[in-house]
């Protein structure tokens, strides 16, 4: 069974990584999931947890997954906003776990915006 004491081992491993990270100039990429009542009921929680899983699994050290309240377009939830330093904000709509995985692999890892999930004039 896991216990909080195990965090110590993870911490020690991370502390060595952080020293490496501090030497690089890159800023932090942020993935923001809308998680007000509208987002949650549309399925934002599994999206959030998938993003956390993928970032942890791929060891993406400069990527942070956070949540926000209502992003203002309830019918398009779950919404994920991607902030890459030095680039314009990208907004993905009606995201699910599968889409979240593709956003990580194509956009965050490879730097290609996933055009299929963007807001278009038809929505």
């Amino acid at each position, binding site marked *: *069974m*896991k*216990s*909080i*004491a*195990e*965090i*110590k081992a*993870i*911490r020690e491993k*991370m*502390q060595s990584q*952080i020293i490496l990270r501090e030497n690089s100039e890159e800023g932090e990429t942020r993935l923001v999931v809308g*998680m*007000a*009542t*509208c987002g*949650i*009921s549309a399925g934002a*929680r*599994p999206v*959030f*947890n998938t993003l*956390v*899983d993928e*970032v*942890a699994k791929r*060891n*993406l050290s400069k*990527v*942070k*997954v*956070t*949540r926000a*309240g*209502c992003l*203002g377009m*309830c019918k398009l939830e779950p919404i994920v906003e991607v902030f890459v330093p030095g680039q314009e904000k990208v907004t993905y709509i009606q995201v699910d776990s599968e889409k979240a995985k593709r956003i990580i692999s194509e956009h965050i890892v490879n730097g290609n915006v996933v055009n299929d999930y963007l807001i278009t004039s038809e929505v």
Partner: protein
Amino acid sequence: MRELSLNLLDIAENSVKAKATLIEITVTVKANLLTFVIKDNGCGMDEAFLAKVTDPFTTTRTTRKVGMGIPLLKMIAEMSGGEFAITSEKGVGTTTSATFQLDHINRPPLGDLADSIVALVTDLGDSNLIFTYSVENEKFVFDTREVRAELEDIPMDNPEILVFIRDLIKQNVEITNGGLNI
């Protein structure tokens, strides 16, 4: 909302917005009654706001004029043979509680508590969260202050830490359930 744990996540977000430094979430299953209580030491509400807080056309947000979180929870509790209550004092904090009859046909499943707690943890900033889960005589307590003590200078919202916290809660909730499907 298909799971009570989603309502929990939704309502606890109000405590974060109220700038609470300590949020206590207690989920108890005992003698055919499921109870959850969310207690915070945030800004609280004045009597006038408290009186209309279960009205869906009351909200603090500015993007639109509806706030469904609390009315939804109240409806689900009452539909499931339970009750909803909210008490608050300006400057002291707010306590929201809801009960559900465990075997009521309208009671939604509890769902994944670990997923909800992890989503909350990322939003805490320097605040803390105590999550207490008990089923009959079994009890599990998760306290972010204990996590922080182990973490030292590593931020708690680091994805690797979040995955660990989620597994920790998942395992312990399962053990606390003792084979019960809640």
